[in-house]
């Protein structure tokens, strides 16, 4: 019951945020790309969260930022999960030489230092939504691939799979209709966690000033606030806290969904590493 409540709170928050992202144009009071007021204005009736260093409305920036965060989170998670499922299932199911090669590649990716690589790639590729998602996705599949591999091996060893195979089912059929179906809760759970990590990583990148300077993102709002000394002027209260809270809100909502999903499927995920 408890987990059901937590889960539905999470889903509600997420649905709201998706709606905000989709209808950003009509929800935002101003265009976040234009100068609509004096610079460094304090919060007022016209500008709920004041304006930034070039006179853009911070509240509108926040609303538009939802798009970037959700898009990068979802895209990078999709990319990462696709690679992870392909590598994990193939490695676990077919075993042998293919397994050894794929696991070697996985270990290499696991050992490559995450943030430095992401930073250097983002620094050279000027960070659009797509390039950011591809970078984050390609760098974050290995752990999940390992988990899926060991699960696939477990499923492959179970009796009913042997029976189905004995009846003449092809590899593809068994993977498509049985292995994949059994893995689905795990894939979904891990996918949610990846969306959350993707959103956090995107905000970190933009906070380091590596995002697309033209796009609005919660991380880059904080970046510009910091670089114009919001901490010293006291404007951090309306300039830095709200975007940070938004990031917390999304990732908390995702964690809630993941938590209730885990409880309901009674899948103890921790020991599957």
């Amino acid at each position, binding site marked *: 019951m408890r987990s059901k409540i937590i889960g539905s709170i999470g889903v509600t928050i997420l649905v709201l945020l998706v709606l905000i992202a989709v209808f950003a144009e009509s929800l935002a009071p101003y265009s976040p790309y234009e100068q609509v007021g004096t610079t460094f204005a304090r919060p007022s009736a016209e500008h709920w969260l004041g304006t930034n260093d070039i006179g853009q409305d911070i509240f509108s920036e926040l609303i538009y930022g939802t798009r970037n965060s959700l898009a990068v989170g979802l895209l990078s998670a999709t990319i990462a999960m696709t690679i992870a499922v392909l590598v994990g299932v193939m490695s676990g199911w077919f075993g042998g030489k293919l397994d050894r090669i794929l696991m070697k590649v996985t*270990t*290499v990716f*696991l*050992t*490559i*230092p*995450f*943030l*430095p*690589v992401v*930073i*250097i*790639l983002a*620094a*050279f*590729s000027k960070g659009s939504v797509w390039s950011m998602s591809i970078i984050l996705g390609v760098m974050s599949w290995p*752990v999940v691939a390992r988990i899926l591999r060991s699960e696939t091996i477990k499923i492959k060893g179970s009796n009913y799979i042997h029976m189905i195979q004995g009846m003449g089912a092809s590899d593809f059929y068994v993977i498509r209709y049985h292995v994949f179906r059994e893995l689905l809760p795990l894939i979904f759970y891990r996918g949610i966690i990846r969306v*959350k990590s993707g959103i*956090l990583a995107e*905000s*970190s990148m933009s*906070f*380091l*000033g*590596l995002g697309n300077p033209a796009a609005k993102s919660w*991380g880059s709002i*904080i970046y510009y606030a*910091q670089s114009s000394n919001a*901490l*010293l002027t006291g404007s*951090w209260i309306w300039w*830095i*806290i709200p975007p*940070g809270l938004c*990031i*917390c809100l999304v*990732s*908390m909502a*995702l*964690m809630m969904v993941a*938590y209730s999903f885990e409880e309901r499927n009674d899948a*103890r995920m*921790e*020991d599957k*590493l």
Partner: protein
Amino acid sequence: MKKRIGHYLIILVIVIVANFFIPRLLPGSPIKTLIGEDTGQMTAEEKMGILDSYHLNDPITVQFGYYIKDLFSDDWGLSFSKRQPIKDLLKSAAGWTLLLSSVSMFFSIVIGCCLGAHSARKRKTKSDLNLILGTTFLSSIPPFWVAILLLAVFGAQLRWFPTYGAYSMWSDKQGLAYVLDVSYHLVLPVLALVLTSLLPYFTTTRYSVLKIINEDYIKMAKIRGVPDHTINVRYVMHNAIIPVFTMVMLDVGYLLSGSILIETVFSYPGLGVLMRDAVTARDYPLIQYTFLISSVLTIIALFLADLCYRKLDPSLEGADEK
């Protein structure tokens, strides 16, 4: 063992090769990359001169030769944005980053494990649930944001802690006074890192303690009248620590990453700030060498963790041979 060393050497080679190819594969003219955006006024000859001086007109194999030669030479050139030798910059930065990340790693492991063990022993009580919710909440906060808030409240507003750097500038503190000064500057960055990296240690310890508590040999020990303290330390913790160490191994790589973000908030003079400055100034040679050094450090840390792991869990030694 030889196999493991081989594995890390291969990764090292991959990183070195990637460091050479990434900037060359990505779009953008090298001149713009090297000089900045004001290439408009340059004549074709000047451009050619620059390309020549960086050997960019040679075939790629020759360029690679120069790259490797530079890498193993003593001189990595000057950083044009900092006007200092790249090697000196990296040396001091790496020291600060290692200090920051090792101290915070130590505290997050100790605190995370204690909380996890406590939570497992109090399973299904209120304090267990509170700890689970609390740590989950902490893990969904972006680390750099926590750092900014800490800085704003305890640094800028209350003035309890310094807001800038790793030591007091313009003061000649020696000995103990210097150590105290450095630790004083460490408090806020370490706090931010520890708060946001507790979760993995917490969940792993909690889970593995829970599993062990229900084992038969623990019940047997209780029946035999072994003191609680001995059970907790010698029987439970000793076995529970192995999965935690697996977590540590996975995390070593990410820890350096975390400290890169925290450093930029506190202007802590480590690799993170160096990389951020290099990125803002588009100082590509500096970016590349910083990337190289932080990658090499991560690989060394992973290797050391791997070594310790084998000491801790001897059953792995055999598994490697298969």
